[in-house]
């Protein structure tokens, strides 16, 4: 009887350790569910989190921007491709604001506030950015690197994803699709 009890306890402990390892691995794995849905021509709901505004005291979330096209761009001051694509996003912001149809929102990650603010000034960024200190929003978008860009339609659905530096073709096409 005692031997049975010891075996059960040992098996339970082994299962717990394996479960813990499995959880650890799955938590670190890439979440590509948004990409898969977009590839199927679906429009999955855009994840949202309330985050502090870079250089401000207020907070904002993607959900607050329902009714507008949103170009959500994850960036960091230390990332050269982020600098390369910044002029495209600045131009997109100008166009969206002029049309009154949407906005670009930056999300900084793995970056100190002072470094991000310096680059906002250097790169002449004309759109607001949020600070994702614990990568809360990044994890919801399966984002592990910068830059990554998600274009969201007025109904709060993801229509296009770029895991890497964007180009004019991607941005124009994605904004046009989101505006339809």
């Amino acid at each position: 009887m005692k031997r049975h009890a010891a075996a059960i306890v040992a098996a339970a402990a082994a299962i717990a350790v394996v479960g813990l390892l499995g959880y650890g691995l799955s938590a670190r794995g890439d979440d590509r569910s948004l990409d898969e849905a977009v590839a199927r021509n679906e429009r999955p709901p855009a994840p949202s989190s309330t985050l502090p505004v870079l250089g401000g005291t207020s907070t904002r979330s993607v959900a607050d921007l329902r009714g507008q096209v949103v170009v959500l761009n994850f960036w960091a001051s230390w990332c050269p491709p982020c600098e390369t694509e910044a002029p495209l996003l600045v131009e997109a912001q100008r166009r969206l604001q002029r049309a009154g149809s949407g906005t670009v929102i930056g999300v900084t990650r793995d970056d100190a506030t002072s470094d991000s603010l310096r680059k906002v000034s250097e790169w002449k960024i004309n759109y607001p950015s949020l600070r994702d200190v614990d990568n809360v929003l990044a994890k919801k978008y399966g984002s592990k690197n910068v830059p990554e860009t998600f274009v969201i339609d007025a109904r709060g659905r993801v229509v296009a994803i770029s895991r890497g530096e964007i180009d004019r073709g991607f941005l124009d096409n994605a904004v046009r699709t989101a505006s339809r």
Partner: protein
Amino acid sequence: MRRAAAALALLAALLAPATAPAADASLVDIEDEVMCVSCEIPLNVAESAQADQQRDFIRARVARGQTKEQIKTALVAEYGREVLALPDGGGFGITAYAVPLALVVALGGGLALLLARWRRRGPAAATTAAEAPALSRTETRRLDEELARYER
């Protein structure tokens, strides 16, 4: 009076190390306790633009005279909890401490059980040998003969 002053000076010298302020923080001291958040490796072995910015962040605070704990708190505020090489004790991070502790406790418990079992078996075996029946006269004679033959 002189003796009293000397005694006071000696006392002060003895107490000085205990009451001295914490040693100054340094980049080297902090680097191995934090992570390069974008490369996911310890900062002291990381080589990237982001790691360099993190080092500048630490150096600036060391220059301002901040303590190691103050600098680590500032790092968490700017880069998130993942900047700490050792997880904090909250949430899932507690498993980093609880699992090894549980394993040590389980192994210790198992070892204690085994030792207790061996101890119980030891005296029992001795008792069995002591309580073995005495040899009969024939058996004793036969044993002696066998031993004598063996010795030849």
